């Protein structure tokens, strides 16, 4: 048996339609759940703030990324900085010049010129918030200036203005 007759005999149309429907519906469900995953995680991370008696944002943020009490020497606040940690606020300021002022010590630490990869790694190591996006902003504002061989300079003049 060949052609349309063979497709009809094997219930081909129904099976193909069912297959496409199942593939699409399962991937749509998956895509919806994955798109909400980070929101659920943000809620989970903020659970202590939402519960009465939980911690507040005034408490210091620790190098290992959590805000539980522990080794107080690990606190990263402007007044309490260890040798290897660069001080920074918990949240990234909106003003790009403020951001530049916070990031300048990282560039000083690396020495110029530096690669963006090294800057990213150092920022991530110091728990700077959103290092990838911030580097992108600093590049757009010409605070990170490219040199000829793919490395970058930090435009300190712009930071001071």
């Amino acid at each position, binding site marked *: *048996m*060949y*052609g*349309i007759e*063979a*497709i009809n005999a*094997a219930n*081909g*149309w129904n*099976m*193909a339609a*069912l*297959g*496409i429907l*199942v*593939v*699409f519906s*399962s*991937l*749509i*469900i*998956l*895509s*919806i*759940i*994955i*798109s909400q*995953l*980070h929101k659920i*995680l943000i809620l989970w991370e903020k659970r202590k703030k939402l519960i009465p008696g939980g911690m507040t944002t005034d408490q210091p943020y620790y190098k290992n990324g959590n805000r539980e009490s522990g080794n107080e020497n690990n606190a990263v606040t402007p007044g309490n900085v260890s040798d290897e940690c660069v001080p920074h606020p918990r949240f990234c300021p909106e003003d790009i010049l403020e951001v530049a002022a916070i990031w300048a010590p990282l560039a000083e630490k690396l020495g110029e010129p530096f690669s963006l990869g090294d800057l990213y790694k150092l920022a991530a190591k110091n728990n700077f918030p*959103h290092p*990838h*996006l911030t580097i*992108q902003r600093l590049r757009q504002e010409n605070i990170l200036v490219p040199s000829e061989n793919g490395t970058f300079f930090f435009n300190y003049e712009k930071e001071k203005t």
Partner: protein
Amino acid sequence: MDKFLHFISQTGFANIELSSFVMMVIALFLLYLGIAKKYEPLLLVPISFGMLLVNFPLSPLMAVPEAGQPGGLLHYLYFGIELGIYPPLIFLGIGALTDFSPLISNPKTLLLGAAAQVGIFGTFLGALALGFSPMEAASIGIIGGADGPTAIYLSSQMAPHLLGAISVAAYSYMALVPMIQPPIMRLLTTKKERIIVMEELRETTKRERILFPIVVILITGLFLPTALPLLGMLMLGNLFRECGVTDRLSKAAQNELNNIIVIFLGLTVGAKCSAYYFLTIETIQIIVLGLVAFSVGTATGVIMGKIMCKATGGKVNPLIGAAGVSAVPMSARVCQTVGQKDNASNFLLMFAMGPNVGGVIGSAIAAGIFLAVL
């Protein structure tokens, strides 16, 4: 003199047949493609060498055990395919090698992975129309997913007699992605669409990356248990990679285990390509249908990309839809190359990786559907 004549009668020269000779030439040609042209060499070299080995006259490698004598080496290694062991283990390695971040940060690209699977079901109908049985048609259609292990897994379960032709077709088209996809992509898109620069992807957190394989397996496992052998191993491999406490297992899955299974799989797939099974009209039909499946999958992915481009007000470059056929990461690289021809500063690779890994999940689900329904 009798002994000498007996020896002569036992040589390959005295027993060679035209069909075996043709298969040996095909094997040498594939070997050339793998080594000189670097078309999927990790797979094509063992496949073509396995093909060469079994097509020697009187080759004992695939011999079945009889009269108290043990069988050939490849006969025993072939149990890994027959029992459906190698493809899930390959998926374990793929999972450990794959970074799902582009998909997690832009999950709507899963739809592109879903759209590219339409080619599978379209070709399923085409194969039925050509007189193949539903199980054979399903095994042929899955070539459109451009996912070698999935094609091998499904055909080993549903149409083991077509395994050689299907696996050679699947891997050949995966190797030929850079030649097959670009004309289709250019035909279906305008220059204005091809130069679209997409917004940067957000960063994903470690927790998200750990939860991803667990969530995927919970949903797909409940939805379609028949897809679990492939998806379960894929997600386990990815969990090894992301959880941060199983580095040794992740490295073993990525390197030693993966490499060993690739050798076994390649050799035994090649060993199935003896002249008796391969040089038939059915094989030519399968190769043509595989090309149709792959082309339709690419086209439907791009068309879905165009729909998403319109729906988002031009924020999605439709070219990335072509990466919805699995072929990781070759088809994502093709999107990057085609995109850069019209806009040299456009970097589509990471955006295309989303639909690319979505396609792996989609084709495993499609295989699960066939296993459940047929």
